[in-house]
C-alpha cells in the first residue's frame, strides 16, 4: 500500500508534463518512422519477402518498437547518478524504511505508463488501419507468455539502468558512459532493425548480451513469431539475466554505499 501511495504522488507530478511527454513521444516516433520509410522503399525495389519478413510484419515490428521503447526502456539512471548520488539526495532515501530499489521502481512506473500510453494510442490507430496484416497473440497461452516476457524485459531494463546509475559512485564522468550505453542498447536490442537482419558477427554479439531480451524478444513474442520451445528458452534466459543483473546491483549497492558521503539537508 505504501508503494501505491508513492506511485500515485509521482503520477500526479508526471501528468503536469503532458505536452512535453507528447513531444518526447514524437521524438521516439520519428526514428523508427525514418527506418520504416527506408524499408518500404527497399521492399518496393527488392520484392515481397526479405529474410522471412514481409513488409507488414516489419512495419508492425517498428510500430511495436515505438511502444516498447516508450514502455520498457527506463530512464532512471540519470536520476540515480545525478540527483541521488552526486547531489546527495540519496540520504533522504536511506533515511526511509523502504528499499531503494523498489522506491525507484515506483518513481519510474508513472513515466513509463504515460509514455507507453501515447505509444499504445499510436499502435491502436495503426492497428485499425492495417489490422489484416497484424498477427497479435490470440490464444490464452500466447497472451500470458507475452505478458510474462514483457514484464521480465521491463525488470531487466530497470535493473540494468539502476546499475548504470550506481556507477556514479565510482565514475565522475557519468555522461560519457551514459551516452555510450544508450548507443549500445539501441544497436544491440534491435531498435535499428530485427536482429535477424544483422551481419553474423554482430548477431552473435547481440545474442550473448542481455539487450535483445529487453526489446527484441518481447516484440517477437507480441508478433507471435516465437515457437513454443523458443518461448521457454526466452523466459529462462530472461530469468538468468535478471538474476545476474540483480546480484550485480546488490553487490554495487553494498560496495558503493560505503563510498558514499552526503551532507545533511
Amino acid at each position, binding site marked *: 500500500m505504501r508503494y501505491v501511495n508513492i506511485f500515485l504522488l509521482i503520477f500526479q507530478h508526471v501528468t503536469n508534463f503532458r*505536452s512535453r511527454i507528447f513531444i*518526447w513521444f514524437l521524438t521516439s516516433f520519428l526514428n523508427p518512422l525514418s527506418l520504416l520509410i527506408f524499408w518500404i*522503399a527497399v521492399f518496393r525495389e527488392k520484392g515481397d519477402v526479405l529474410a522471412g519478413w514481409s513488409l507488414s510484419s516489419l512495419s508492425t515490428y517498428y510500430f511495436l518498437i515505438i511502444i516498447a521503447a516508450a514502455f520498457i526502456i527506463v530512464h532512471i539512471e540519470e536520476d540515480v547518478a545525478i540527483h541521488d548520488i552526486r547531489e546527495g539526495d540519496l540520504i533522504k532515501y536511506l533515511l526511509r524504511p523502504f528499499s531503494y530499489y523498489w522506491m525507484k521502481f515506483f518513481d519510474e512506473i508513472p513515466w513509463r505508463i504515460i509514455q507507453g500510453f501515447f505509444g499504445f494510442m499510436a499502435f491502436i490507430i495503426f492497428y485499425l488501419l492495417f489490422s489484416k496484416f497484424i498477427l497479435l497473440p490470440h490464444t490464452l497461452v500466447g497472451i500470458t507468455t507475452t505478458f510474462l516476457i514483457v514484464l521480465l524485459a521491463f525488470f531487466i531494463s530497470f535493473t540494468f539502468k539502476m546499475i548504470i546509475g550506481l556507477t556514479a559512485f565510482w565514475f565522475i564522468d557519468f555522461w560519457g558512459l551514459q551516452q555510450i550505453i544508450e548507443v549500445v542498447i539501441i544497436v544491440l536490442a534491435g531498435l535499428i532493425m530485427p536482429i535477424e*537482419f544483422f551481419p553474423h558477427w554482430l548477431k552473435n554479439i547481440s545474442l550473448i548480451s542481455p539487450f535483445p531480451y529487453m526489446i527484441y524478444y518481447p516484440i517477437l513474442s507480441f508478433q507471435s513469431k516465437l515457437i513454443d520451445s523458443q518461448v521457454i528458452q526466452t523466459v529462462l534466459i530472461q530469468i538468468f539475466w535478471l538474476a545476474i543483473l540483480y546480484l550485480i546491483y546488490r553487490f554495487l549497492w553494498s560496495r558503493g554505499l560505503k563510498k558514499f558521503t552526503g551532507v545533511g539537508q
Partner: protein
Amino acid sequence: MIRYLKIYKALMKINLIALFTYRANFINSTISSFFWGVFAIATIVLITSKTSTLFGWKREEIILLTAVYTLIVGIFHIFFARNFERFSRLMMWGQFDSVLLKPLDSQFSISFWELNYSAIIRVILGTLLLVYLIFSLSYVINLFNLILFLSFLIVGVVTLYTLWFFAASFLIWVPELSNIIELMYTVNGFTRYPPEMFKRVSGFLFIFTLPIVFVASSPFKTLIGRANYIDIFASFFICGLFLIISRFFWRFALRSYTSASN
C-alpha cells in the same frame, strides 16, 4: 555588421575559455558526440549490409552520403545546436527578457551565443570517412567540384539552421515545449537518406520532406559531379526562401511574447 563580427569574435573567445575551465565536461561531450556520430554511420552500414544497390545508389554512395551528413551535422552542432538549447532553457525559466533588453538583434543573440567545440570530433569523423570512401571508390574530384561542395555544405547548414529557428519560434507561444529542440535533433537524422528513397515511397512524402532531403544530398551530388542545375537551384532557392520566412516568423512570434519576469 562589423560590430556583430567583433562581438562574435569575443563570444568565440569566451566559449574557448569556458572550454578550458570545464575540461572534463568537454571530454565528456566529445565522447558522446563521437559515439552518436559513429552510431549514425553504423545505422546506415547495418541497414544496407545485405544489398549492393538501392534506389539507384551504390551502397558505398549511400555511406558516402552519411559521411557528408556527419560533416554537416558536425558543423551545425559546433555553431548552432547549443544556442537553440540555450534558447529553450531561457524560455523555460523565464529569462528571455535579458536577451531582448540587450542592444543586439534578438535573432543574432539567440543564434550565435554559444559554440560547441566538442562537435569538432564529428567533423573530423565525417571528413575521414569521406576521404577514405572517395579514395576507395576512386572518384576524381576536381577543384571546381570541391569549391562547389564546400559552398553547398554551408547552404545545407544554413537550411538546417532555418528549420531549427522556425521550430524554436514556437517556444515564444508555448515555453514549456522546450524539448522541441530534442525533436529537431531527430529531424536532422532524416537528411542522411537519399532523396530517391522518399520519392519511391510516395511523391507526397517527398514534397513534405523536401527541405530536409536536399541538405546532405546536394553537397554530395556536387562533389561527385552528378548535380544538375535543378538540384543546385532548388537548394539555393529553398535555403534563401526559408531564411527570409523564418526571419519574418520570428518577428511575428516576438510580438506575442509575454514576459515572465519582472
